[in-house]
């Protein structure tokens, strides 16, 4: 039995210590935001935060996590209370098939927690680790720039002006 802290909650799972964290999150804890894209640390669809750092959860064995706090998209916010990153991705309609998006959101979250005013170059280099096959890169970048404005300083040398005008659509209760 292994104990780990996920989204602020202490969880105990009965899994082989070599099991990658991705499978533990999805199979044992039913936190299905993180996705299996390649299983080889090449695509980033499995990206979660461990101790504030973005990691490929498909390559992180359960035995290595220990008591380092794990955070997934489910821990950023809830449908009624979206976090700035989640709200920005929704407002910019950054998802097409949506498969890369949870990884993109967690990678963006890590950047914006580290710096409130990234430069455009920093933003692109940071996000370039995660792949998107549908080609919604420009919307994803707009979403991260929007989140940066909401969370603090915005993006320096942004290649597009950041829109914060369109509010997320009203949701029925």
């Amino acid at each position, binding site marked *: 039995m292994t104990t780990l802290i996920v989204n602020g909650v202490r969880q105990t799972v009965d899994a082989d210590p070599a099991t990658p964290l991705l499978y533990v999150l999805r199979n044992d804890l039913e936190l299905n935001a993180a996705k299996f894209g390649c299983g080889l640390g*090449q695509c980033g669809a499995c990206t979660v935060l461990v101790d504030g750092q973005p990691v490929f959860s498909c*390559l992180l064995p359960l035995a290595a996590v220990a008591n380092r706090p794990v955070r997934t998209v489910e821990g950023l916010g809830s449908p009624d209370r979206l976090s700035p990153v989640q709200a920005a991705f929704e407002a910019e309609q950054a998802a097409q098939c949506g498969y890369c998006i949870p990884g993109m959101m967690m990678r963006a979250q890590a950047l914006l927690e580290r710096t409130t005013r990234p430069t455009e170059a920093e933003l692109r280099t940071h996000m370039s680790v995660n792949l998107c096959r549908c080609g919604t890169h420009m919307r994803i970048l707009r979403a991260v720039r929007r989140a940066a404005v909401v969370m603090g300083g915005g993006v320096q040398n942004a290649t597009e002006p950041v829109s914060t005008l369109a509010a997320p659509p009203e949701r029925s209760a």
Partner: protein
Amino acid sequence: MEAKLVTPRRRQEWPSGWRLAATAALVLALAAVVALVATWRPAMAPVTPPPPSSFDRSEIARGAGLAHLGYCAVCHSAPGGAAFAGGLDLKTPFGDVYSTNITPDAETGIGRWSQPAFVRAMRQGVARNGAHLYPAFPYDHFSEASEGDLRALYAFLMTRVPVRAPPHTNHLIPPLGFRPLLAGWKLLFLRPRPVEADSRRSAEWNRGRYLVESLSHCGGCHAPRNALGAEERAHGLTGGWSEGWYAPPLDATSPAARVWTVERMDAYLRTGLSLSHAAAAGPMGPVTRELSAAPPGDVHAIAVYVSSLMAGAPASRAETPGQDRAAAAAKAYPQGAVLFAGACAGCHGPGAPMMLEGRPALSLGTPLYEDGPRDTLQIMLRGLNKPVGRAGPYMPPFSDSFSDAQLAEIGAYLRARYTDRAPWPGELTREAAKARKEGAS
């Protein structure tokens, strides 16, 4: 009137301690003046930036190839910055030195440098204005380049796009910011010796040796340095350190498990991957990217020369057979086995897609056979570059995934599973912490 014996007034005598101090001060002042005069280099007159059309096109093309062979762009470009515009922070044991702008910009680059000024900079480490240059710029190697090659490099650089990029301020341990001190360093350590051809060897071998000793400056990483940062060139490429990585020996003490034939070395230098060894790691990544664009004949010449240096290495007599002692390694390092199974086996394990694609097994690569774990740890921390010119998987960094203790466990496990060598000595967790700190960009 009495005649008095009048003692002539004695000259006021200083106490002997004061006299000694005054003499010493005078000698020092004279020595300083002599030193400053000896270290002073004249400024060379600035010229009007020569128009690109004034250079011969074939000379420019030759210079382009030489610039790849010397990897000028690697140091003289900052991440995200324009090519050759400088600004890269070179962390040395003496502080941070920033590379300069060598585009032909008139104000912030070398646009106003005459050809003799450029040649003097490359040969003697003196800027156009007479300032001494820090040997982070390897003029101790470039001093051995031929006049013709330096002229071709000048033609190439002066025909690049001028970029306005003012120089950064170096942050050196005082008093190293005082450039005339470098003249003392040069007096002690700068020994220009033109590379003389060895008539017993082929023209290609001699070309390789010329490049290795001059523009390609392999010894800059692959040879040891003394306490003042000067390369110890007397014994050849016996191994050295660069940016937190260990550059293994390229001579008879090479620890490689597989022999470096000319073909394997040529493939490695041109593509960043040897199927009989491993992928180019750390600082060798940018080197092989540059060499992939250099004239293939010259890269082959380097391969001929360097592989000949390792002709006496153990692998030349008998290649170490590939090992995979999974059970024994798992018994000795059970935590390492667990971590490997979850993190590494997906690419490196038998039957993994990457292995089926033909990538070399871990038992072939040199890092696990080196005397210390530094390169193995750095590869795990930083990952690897993609091979040049081919799509394919790259190894991602694991610095955020694993603690130092976990990296040490995996490293020890790899050494036990894939080599026939004894475990690395020393405290591996501490080695991991050092690798993490020293390789950080």
